[in-house]
C-alpha cells in the first residue's frame, strides 16, 4: 500500500513538472507574431504523417536514419509496456495485461525485449558516433558544453533504462521459475511471491539471468523491485527533463511538421506593411498627409529580437534537435564561414528562454538591453547566407532557418540602414538604373543589336 501511495505521488509530481514546463514553453512561443498555418489541412496531415511519423527525411542519411528508427519505434512501443508498469504501480497488481493476453502477451513482451535490446545497441552506437568517431557536424562550435552533454545524458539514460527494463524481466522470470518449482512440489506460494505468475517470454533478458541466478528469493524480489522503481522513476525523470532539452523534438516534431511551410521553398513572405506603404507611394490619388490612426502601434520592419519573429519561427526553435544536418549541407558553413543554420535555431531558442525568464519575473517583456541580433547572431553570420535552402531541405523536422536569417537582414536594412557597402551600392543601382549594376537602363536592349553582328 505504501508503495502504491509513493508511486502515485512520484507519478503526479512528474506529470505536474512536465505540464508546468510545457505551459512555460507555450507562453514563450506565444510572444511571436501571428501567422496563419491552418490552411490546406489535408496536405498538412500528409506532411506530418510522412515526415514526423514516417521519418521520410531521416533516411536521407541511411545509417543515422536506421538507428533513429529503432530508437523511435522502440520508444513508441515500449511505452505500451510502460502503461502496464504504471497500472502496476497504481493497483499493486503485477503483469496486469497477462491475464487476458495469453499467447499475445508473451509475444508482445518478447517483442518489446528485442526492441529494448536494439534501442540499447543503437544508443551505444550513437554514443560512439558522437564521442569517438570524428563526425564534423557533432564537433561544430555551437555544440560545445551543454548541447553535447544534453545529447550524451539522454543516450546514457536510455541505455540505463533499457538495461533496467531487461534486468527487471530477468529477475521476474527467475522468480516465476521459483513459483513454478513450488507449485510442482505442491507447496504453498508465499504472499511475497504471489506477484510472479507465469507470463511473458524473455528472449533477451534470459541472457541476463545468469547475472542474478545466484540470488535468493528475497534478493531477487529486491532487485526486481529496484529495477522496476529505477525504470519508472527514470521514465518520469525523462519526462520532466525532455522539455528542457533538444529531445523535446520527440513531441514537437509532430505539430511542427503539421505547421510546415507548404509554399515552394524559394517563396519568401511579402511584407504586408511594406505593400501598404508602397501602394501609397505609387498611388497618385492617395492623400499624402493621411496620418495613421494615433493609437496604431509603430510598424517594425524585420526582426531584431525573438518577439519580432512569428510564433512558427519560435516553434521551430524548440523543435530543433541540434542534429546539424542543416549546417553540414550549408555551403557557407562548409567553406568555413561563421554561419551555421543550426546555431541560428539554437540562438533563437536560447534568447527566447532568456526573454521567457524575464517575463516570468516581471510579468511582461522587459527590455534587458539585449537582442537576438548581435548579442546572439552577428551580422557576419547573416550576410554569409546564400538563401540556397540546403538547410531547409536537409532538416528532418521541416525547420526553416532561412526565414529567420531574412527577417534579421530586413531589420538591418530597413530599420538600421546597415549593409555591406557593396550591397548598398547594389540597392542604389537597382533604384536608379533598374539593375543591380551601374549600367544605364537605355542599354538594356543592346544585346538585340549585337545579335546579328
Amino acid at each position, binding site marked *: 500500500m505504501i508503495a502504491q501511495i509513493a508511486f502515485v505521488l512520484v507519478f503526479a509530481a512528474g506529470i505536474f513538472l512536465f505540464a508546468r514546463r510545457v505551459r512555460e514553453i507555450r507562453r514563450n512561443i506565444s510572444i511571436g507574431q501571428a501567422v496563419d498555418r491552418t490552411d490546406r489541412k489535408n496536405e498538412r496531415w500528409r506532411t506530418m504523417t510522412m515526415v514526423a511519423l514516417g521519418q521520410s527525411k531521416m533516411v*536521407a542519411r541511411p545509417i543515422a536514419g536506421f538507428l533513429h528508427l529503432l530508437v523511435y519505434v522502440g520508444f513508441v512501443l515500449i511505452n505500451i509496456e510502460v502503461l502496464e508498469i504504471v497500472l502496476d504501480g497504481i493497483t499493486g497488481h503485477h503483469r496486469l495485461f497477462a491475464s487476458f493476453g495469453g499467447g499475445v502477451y508473451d509475444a508482445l513482451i518478447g517483442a518489446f525485449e528485442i526492441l529494448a535490446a536494439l534501442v540499447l545497441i543503437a544508443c551505444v552506437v550513437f554514443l560512439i558516433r558522437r564521442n569517438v568517431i570524428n563526425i564534423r557536424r557533432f564537433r561544430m562550435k555551437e555544440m560545445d558544453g551543454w548541447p553535447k552533454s544534453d545529447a550524451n545524458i539522454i543516450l546514457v539514460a536510455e541505455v540505463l533504462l533499457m538495461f533496467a527494463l531487461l534486468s527487471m524481466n530477468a529477475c521476474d522470470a527467475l522468480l516465476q521459475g521459483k513459483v513454478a518449482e513450488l507449485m510442482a512440489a505442491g507447496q504453498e506460494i508465499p504472499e511475497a511471491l504471489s506477484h510472479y505468475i507465469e507470463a511473458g517470454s524473455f528472449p533477451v533478458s534470459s541472457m541476463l539471468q545468469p547475472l542474478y541466478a545466484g540470488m535468493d528469493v528475497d534478493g531477487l524480489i529486491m532487485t526486481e523491485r529496484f529495477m522496476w522503481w529505477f525504470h519508472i522513476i527514470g521514465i518520469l525523470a525523462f519526462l520532466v527533463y525532455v522539455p528542457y532539452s533538444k529531445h523535446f523534438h520527440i513531441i514537437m516534431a509532430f505539430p511542427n511538421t503539421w505547421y510546415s511551410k507548404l509554399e*515552394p*521553398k*524559394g*517563396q*519568401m513572405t*511579402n*511584407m504586408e506593411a*511594406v*505593400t501598404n*506603404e*508602397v501602394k501609397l507611394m*505609387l498611388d497618385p490619388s492617395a492623400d499624402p498627409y493621411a496620418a495613421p490612426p494615433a493609437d496604431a502601434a509603430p510598424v517594425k520592419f*524585420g526582426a531584431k529580437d525573438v518577439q519580432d519573429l512569428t510564433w512558427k519561427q519560435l516553434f521551430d526553435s524548440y523543435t530543433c534537435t541540434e542534429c546539424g544536418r542543416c549546417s553540414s549541407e550549408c*555551403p*557557407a558553413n*562548409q*567553406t*568555413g*564561414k*561563421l554561419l551555421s543554420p543550426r546555431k541560428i535555431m539554437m540562438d533563437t531558442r536560447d534568447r527566447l528562454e532568456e526573454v521567457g525568464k524575464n517575463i516570468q519575473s516581471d510579468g511582461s517583456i522587459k527590455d534587458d538591453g539585449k537582442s537576438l541580433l548581435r548579442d546572439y547572431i552577428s551580422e557576419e553570420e547573416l*550576410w*554569409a*547566407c*546564400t*538563401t*540556397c*535552402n*540546403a538547410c*531547409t*531541405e536537409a532538416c528532418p523536422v521541416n525547420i526553416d532557418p532561412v526565414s529567420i536569417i*531574412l527577417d534579421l*537582414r*530586413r*531589420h*538591418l*536594412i*530597413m530599420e538600421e540602414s546597415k*549593409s*555591406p557597402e*557593396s*550591397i548598398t551600392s*547594389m*540597392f542604389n543601382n*537597382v*533604384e536608379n538604373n*533598374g*539593375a*543591380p*549594376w551601374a549600367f544605364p*537602363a537605355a*542599354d*538594356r*536592349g*543592346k*544585346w*538585340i543589336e*549585337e*545579335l*546579328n553582328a
Partner: protein
Amino acid sequence: MAEHITVPTVAQLVSAGEVPEILFWVGCSGSFDDRAKKITKAIVRILHHAGVKYAVLGAEETCTGDPAKRAGNEFLFQMQAMQNIMVLNGYEIKKIVTGCPHCFNILKNEYPELGGNYEVMHHTQLINDLIKEGKLAIKGGESFKGRRITFHDPCYLGRANDVYEAPREALQALDAELVEMRRCKQKGLCCGAGGAQMFKEAEPGNKEVNVERTEDALEVKPNVIATGCPFCNTMMTDGVKNFEKEDSVEVKDVAELIAEAADLLPS
C-alpha cells in the same frame, strides 16, 4: 548558317495589333553581363527557330527586385515588383519564360500576392517542351558524341521550385553522356551567388563556395559543365579558371548547348 533575327518588343507587337504568346523576361544579368548575353541570344534563337510568338520588354523591363529582397530590402523589392506588374498587366501578359531562376522564382512565387499572376516557365522547361513537341529538331546532336556533360542544379530552380528533370531531359537530346555529381538535385550545392552574394565579397572562410562546387563538378571529369542560371554560369566559370581547367572544361548554359546542337548559333 544562322539567320538574321529581329527581336520584337511587346510595345512593337501591340502597336501592330498583335499579342505575344509568351514574354521572354531577359533579366538584368541576361541584358548586361557579356557572358550572360550569349545565353540570352541562344534562347532567342531557339524561340525564333521553333516559331514561338514571343516578345521582350526591352527598355520597359527592370530588375525584378530579387537581389534587393533577399538582402532584406523589402521596400525596394516591392517598388520594383509593382512597377513591373503595372507594365506586365498593362500589356495583359499571361505567360512568361525567363532565362534566370531568380527571375523565375520571384515572378512565379512572389509577384502573385502583389497582383501579378502569370504562368512562368524557366527556359529549360520551354526548351524541353519544344523538343518533345517536335518543334525543335536537334540534328547536329552527334557533335556531342563522346562528350561528358554534368548539370549543376541552380538552387532557385531545383530546391526552391522542384524543377529537376526539365533541364536533364533537354540535355538527353544531345548525343552526350550525362553524368551526375555526387551532390545533385535536392542535395545540390549552391554556386555561392544567391541571396545577393553575387554583389558582395564573401565572408571570411577557408574557401570560396564556387570553388567547392567546381570541385564537385570536376570530380566527374566532364567536358562540359551545364548550367541553367547566368549567376551559376559566372561562378562555375570562375571556379574552372581557379583550377586552370578552362582549356578542357567548358561552362555552358543548357540553351547554348541545345542551340549549338541544333546549329542555330553564328559560327
